[in-house]
């Protein structure tokens, strides 16, 4: 029999930590800081709106672009929150999570051979998405001493005449780094000079703790060369609903819509009704969750620094990304031994790219009692290495 697996599927690298994950499944009493989602339930009014839409029989496909009411609410919300203007009829597509948005956006703009600068460290799907579209991903290193921002110097060093797209995610998973207005302005000229398109994944935008999130498309000169990706998962604790969206200038949105309609038809209808309720009446619950994350962040990051793992104060998302280099272990060794000895799961930073090496990703979207127990256990582990 032939080998039926495509070359592309065969060559795509598996996610880095399978072995670690298998080990995790054999253990009890594990405190996992390895998750990438809120620990809150979806606010009940949002779930209730979805249930009620099902009871009314509203379970048909929606327009390919998504429910008109949802897009109108989104357009108003983005304008109000980030001062970015998108036409709900022509420049917006509701997708099945930001994951689909990412896939559709990449395929809408990347030709085989195109070079795509991918912020590093980053969410594990970015490079594979580019590879699956035939593009050539190239890491753009972000370093701890720069609070994991993109600096103009790093961008200048990495950009080449073949570069077409800059793919980035701020607030960042896994580092919690953010790009403020001045940081974005500092790279805008380079983006324009090299005629790049920015693919900006802002799914953690609402989880910004010191100051407000600045949307890439709101920077002068960048709107018409930016695709904004966002979704409901993180801000409204709706990961399992699978709902995201793409905002882009019409020509790009038209191209993305073709791909979206062939691969997905439309985003889940029930989730779209939930999202409408989230936008109408979800603000208070969201603000409460954000306030809680911020307090946990303060406690947790101080805890990590106190037990000897230097950690910058992340200004967004719900991750802390401490350096473990002082322990003399690699990030993989650290994660594996910490799991074996103290039953705390963290993700090795190198799973998110070369620049993540020497760090571990820890998620503080975990209840406070567990979080403080985790700090205690990490402290015991670090102390045991020095004795």
């Amino acid at each position, binding site marked *: 029999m032939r080998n039926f697996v495509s070359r592309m599927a065969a060559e795509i690298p598996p996610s880095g930590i399978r072995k670690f994950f298998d080990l995790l*499944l054999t253990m009890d009493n594990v405190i996992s800081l390895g998750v*990438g989602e809120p620990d809150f339930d979806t606010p009940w009014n949002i779930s209730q709106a979805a249930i009620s839409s099902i009871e009314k029989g509203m379970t048909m496909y929606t327009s390919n672009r998504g429910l008109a009411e949802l897009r109108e609410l989104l357009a108003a919300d983005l304008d109000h929150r980030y001062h970015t203007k998108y036409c709900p009829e022509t420049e917006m597509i509701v997708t099945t999570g930001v994951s689909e948005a990412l896939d559709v956006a990449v395929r809408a703009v990347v030709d085989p051979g195109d070079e795509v600068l991918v912020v590093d460290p980053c969410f594990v799907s970015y490079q594979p998405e580019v590879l699956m579209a035939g593009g050539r991903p190239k890491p753009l290193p972000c370093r701890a001493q720069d609070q994991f921002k993109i600096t103009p110097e790093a961008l200048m060093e990495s950009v080449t005449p073949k570069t077409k797209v800059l793919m980035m995610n701020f607030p960042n998973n896994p580092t919690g780094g953010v790009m403020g207005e001045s940081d974005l302005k500092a790279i805008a000229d380079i983006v324009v000079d090299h005629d790049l398109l920015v693919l900006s994944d802002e799914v953690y935008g609402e989880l910004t703790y010191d100051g407000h999130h600045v949307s890439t498309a709101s920077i002068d000169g960048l709107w018409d060369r930016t695709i904004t990706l966002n979704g409901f998962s993180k801000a409204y604790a709706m990961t399992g609903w699978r709902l995201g969206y793409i905002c882009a200038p019409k020509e790009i949105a038209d191209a993305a819509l073709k791909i979206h309609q062939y691969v997905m038809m439309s985003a889940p209808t029930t989730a779209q009704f939930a999202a409408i309720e989230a936008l109408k009446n979800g603000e208070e619950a969201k603000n409460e969750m954000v*306030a809680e994350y911020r307090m946990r962040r*303060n*406690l947790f990051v101080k805890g990590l620094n106190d037990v000897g793992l230097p950690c910058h104060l992340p200004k967004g998302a719900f991750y802390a990304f401490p350096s473990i280099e002082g322990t003399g272990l690699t990030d993989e060794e650290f994660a594996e031994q910490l799991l074996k000895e103290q039953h705390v799961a963290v993700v090795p930073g190198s799973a998110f790219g070369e620049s993540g090496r020497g760090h571990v990703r820890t998620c503080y979207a975990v209840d406070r009692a567990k979080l403080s127990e985790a700090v205690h256990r990490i402290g015991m582990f670090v102390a045991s290495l020095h004795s």
Partner: protein
Amino acid sequence: MDEKDTVILRELQKNSRISARDIAVMLEVDEREVENRIAALHAAGILRRCTAVIDYSAAGVDEVAVILSLKITPERGLGYDGIAAQIARFPQVESILLLTGTYDLQVIIRGQSMAEVSRFVAEQIASIDGVRETMTQIVMRTYKEQGVEMSRPGSRDRQLITF
């Protein structure tokens, strides 16, 4: 009372054992300030008591709670206050609320057994001058108390690692 006081109160309401040090880190202020604020909230009578939410049924302890609804003849010059104050003296009484509607006062009473609670209601409450009528309802199960959902398991199924 400012925003920080509000957060402190909410934190204490959620977990009365939280340390001033933790609150200080969370609020990005120093520990001394948190201690001073808590003391001031006490002194002003805003923060009355830090307590615990207990699910006795989980401990297998048989405890009886009843909700007693009372019709009251208001007293001249005092209204409902005098009778409410008399009832409030009993340690068995957990809460007293003045309500609109058919009944005037709602009183929650806890005791070790039904016999004990019945005797208390009959001998101590029903006999108070001005109590015209009583309706006693037994609490069968507590689903939520002081913001804590009693019937729901503490942790849910969640993936251990997601990116």
